[in-house]
């Protein structure tokens, strides 16, 4: 059952276009969530939320008018549509009759997390707490969090589109603080997917041990070096490098405003031929996956770089229309309160043929960034920065001392062109991406990747 009846949606669209406009859309949503954490070995902050609401959008030429309301009462939706129409004040346009799309290929959810007793979730957190604390006497603090969310969305537009999606996501995070004499270090690890509670089958407690291991390892760390050197980036969350360095610059809104260093570079060689990369919202079970995007376009795989050549930007409907092309299924919004904008889903570098160990052993002096705390890019200039959460020195082809407090900075086009090895290993990780005030779940992935010449910013000047 859709969150809004088709007949109601048809009336809202008709009203929205009653005084002009080229396109109208109703995005309706019902979202529920639950989260829980453990801190100081105490289960706390249980929180449940439930929201219903809708956003109505009318596009008139190049101008987008948008209204959103809490609740899904027909009166409220009609009032929103009325407000938009009143602002246009022209002659009416007729929407095409709605026709439901083929049922979407929903992600398979084996166990609806909402059906699992909260006490089970508390027990998972107790297990994480226990595993983190048993990693050693130097573990000073451990905390962990569990969250689940379900979004049922329905999209209707004046071109006759009617599509739905039902997205369930589960995520665990563990944070550990380790202390030795006056030194304090932290470690963090996550596990998440567009899946049900079955994600936590197996051994979710391992992430607490991994977080603890990172914090303990860093206790013996030296200050990170500063200066330019070869950098090897680890698999999994290392993919955030590609997300920032390239992904954001390929989002069509930035490109069309000339606010991306990738503007005008379509078809050009931007990397060595060993590099191929995708954005893929249809990867089964991944964090950034969906059946459709938030404009009703089916999620799909888009090759953005093929053998070093730039092959596609990432589009939503509005920006695709401007470029005379099709949406790539990247029109995403945080909630019914937001306009869709071009966003990544799951972005990854395709595994190459280099042995990860050789990628490192060929480096005489360099820096090994195993994992990042996050990153940021300014697509217009291409300048980026990443905080390294786990990093090591590479000396004589071997990984030696752990380093604390490192940051990687550089410029997109330069750094992308300097990737000279892509590993055959591969891992996907979960992240949250912020853009224009909206947060979206995104997946990032890659194997080991080597970049010749990047600035490491540390305190050891």
């Amino acid at each position, binding site marked *: 059952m859709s969150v809004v009846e088709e007949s109601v949606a048809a009336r809202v669209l008709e009203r929205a276009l009653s005084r002009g406009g080229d396109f109208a859309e109703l995005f309706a949503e019902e979202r529920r969530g639950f989260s*829980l954490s453990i801190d100081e070995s*105490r*289960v*706390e*902050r*249980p*929180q*449940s*939320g*439930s*929201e*219903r609401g809708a956003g109505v959008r009318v596009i008139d030429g*190049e*101008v987008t*008018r*948008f209204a*959103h*309301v*809490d*609740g899904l009462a027909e009166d409220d939706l009609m009032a929103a549509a009325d*407000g938009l129409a009143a*602002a246009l004040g022209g002659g009416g346009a007729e929407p095409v009759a709605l026709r439901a799309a083929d049922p979407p290929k929903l992600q398979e959810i084996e166990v609806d997390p909402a059906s699992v007793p*909260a006490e089970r*979730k508390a027990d998972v957190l107790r297990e994480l707490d226990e595993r983190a604390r048993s990693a050693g006497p130097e573990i000073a*603090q451990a905390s962990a969090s569990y969250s689940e969310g379900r979004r049922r969305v329905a999209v209707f537009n004046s071109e006759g589109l009617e599509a739905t999606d039902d997205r369930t996501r589960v995520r665990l995070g563990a944070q550990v*603080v380790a202390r030795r004499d006056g030194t*304090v*270090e*932290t470690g963090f690890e996550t596990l998440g997917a567009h899946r049900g509670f079955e994600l936590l089958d197996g051994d979710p407690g391992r992430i607490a041990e991994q977080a603890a291991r990172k914090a303990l390892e860093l206790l013996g760390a030296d200050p990170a070096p*500063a*200066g330019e050197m070869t950098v090897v980036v680890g698999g999994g969350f290392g993919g955030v490098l590609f997300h920032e360095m390239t992904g954001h610059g390929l989002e069509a809104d*930035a490109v069309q*405003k*000339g*606010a991306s260093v990738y503007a005008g570079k379509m078809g050009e060689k931007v990397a060595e031929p060993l590099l191929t990369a995708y954005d893929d919202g249809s990867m089964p079970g991944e964090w950034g996956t969906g059946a459709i995007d938030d404009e009703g376009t089916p999620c799909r795989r888009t090759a953005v770089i093929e053998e070093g050549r730039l092959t596609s930007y990432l589009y939503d409907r509005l920006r695709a229309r401007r470029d005379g092309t099709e949406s790539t299924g990247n029109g995403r919004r945080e909630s019914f309160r937001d*306009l869709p904008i071009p966003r990544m889903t799951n972005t990854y570098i395709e595994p190459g043929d280099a042995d990860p160990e050789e990628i490192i052993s060929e480096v005489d002096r360099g820096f090994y960034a195993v994992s990042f*705390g*996050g*990153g*940021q890019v*300014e697509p*217009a*200039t291409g*300048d*980026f*920065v*990443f*905080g390294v959460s786990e990093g090591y020195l590479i000396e004589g082809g071997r990984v030696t001392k752990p380093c*604390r*407090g490192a*940051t990687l*900075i*550089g*410029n997109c086009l330069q750094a992308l062109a300097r990737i000279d090895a892509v590993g055959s290993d591969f891992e996907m990780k979960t992240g949250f991406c912020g853009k224009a005030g909206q947060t979206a779940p995104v997946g990032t992935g890659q194997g080991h990747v080597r970049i010749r010449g990047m*600035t*490491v*910013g*540390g*305190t050891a*000047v």
Partner: protein
Amino acid sequence: MSAELEQAARRAVEAATAAGATDAEAWSEGSRSREVRVHAGEVESLTEASGRGVGIRAWIGQRTGYAYGTDLSDSGLAALAEAAAGAARVADEDENSSAPDPSGEAIPEIEGLRDEAVAATETAEVIDLAKRIERAALDRDKRVSGVEEVVYVDEDGDAAIATSRGVSGSFGVSTAYSFLQAMATQDSEVQTGLGFGVGRSPGALNAEEIGAEAGDEASSMLGATKPESRSCPVVLSERVTASFAGFIGGALCADDVQRGRSPFADRLGDELASTAYVLADDGIDPDGLASAPFDGEGTPRERTPLIADGKLLAYLHDSYTARRGGARSTGNASRASYRSPPSVSTSNLVLAPGELSLEGLLERAGDGVCITEVAGLHSGVNPVTGRYSVGASGRAIRGGELAEPLREFTIAGDLLGTLAAVRAVGSESRWVPFGGSVRTAPMLVGEMAIGGA
């Protein structure tokens, strides 16, 4: 609106008690907001929105749970109350967990939190304001090649609280802000610059100043090069000092302090900062956008000196951390919205201005770097250890004056070390909406590690 919200909060408390809560607190909000995005002289998008919702905190003995929703009907509140009470049953007991009693202190009257002009200003007027901001950036320098977009937002809203222990109240606020990112181009090089303004109504925003700031910054960065790695004096712009104050304020929140996750834990009363650095949390300054008569659990907001004479004077508390730490609440229980339970957070941070103008600070620095922008804060600052390493851009300082632009470098250090190394705070202060709501000024730090070429 506020009478309706107060009533919704009271009904929510009753519903929670009926659902088995031994104590309950409800926070309700309603707002209308408007957003305009302008690009190349045209409106790109126009958003009008209304929102409302309620959050219920329920206690069952010493267990606490939270639930929020957008359905304020009787059946909606009943479902929400069940969810809150149900959540509380999952939590472990905590001897410090209990509903706050009314503080007994007078709720401050703060004039000027709401400017009726927000609701009265036609959308056509704010569209014109946004267009003038863009124009001002483009007219500033012929190398300014475009503006990604000008964003203008205003909001007018009310909030109300009610609890089973008799805490109750409501207030209304308005805000208006605008920002833009300008691009300057020379040959194939592009640089960006940010401009912004904040206030209670669109009338408080000066289009020419906001646009000029972005245009100046973008064009002044053209030709930027990477500096040599070294340690040197730095002057931090007010945007950077705002973020810095935000991290200091965050680390002074008693929650993380009590849980041993702050570099300031067990340091109360210690001399740890330069005497030039004087910081307070001020929840009642009418110009501060975070100001309110009471905090997220109904405790009166107040002004709390944090650092003065080089000493750490106080931590920030809500009722939970106050009980746990044997202190009194400083009125710093904050909520991002009804969607989140209250937790300790800064309100408005105020860095006391010093004597020297920006020119004076540069002269005192002699040779060094002036940092106008930092990037990668959320991953580059570790709030537990206090260490930071973030991306930066700015200008060289030579012979006490601004010289060539610099980019693609990092600054690194630790919060406590930097606090002690502050040499002077500037005299020109302004409100900055980064790092929370901060009234701040530029400052000179004696030495900082620069990571460049």
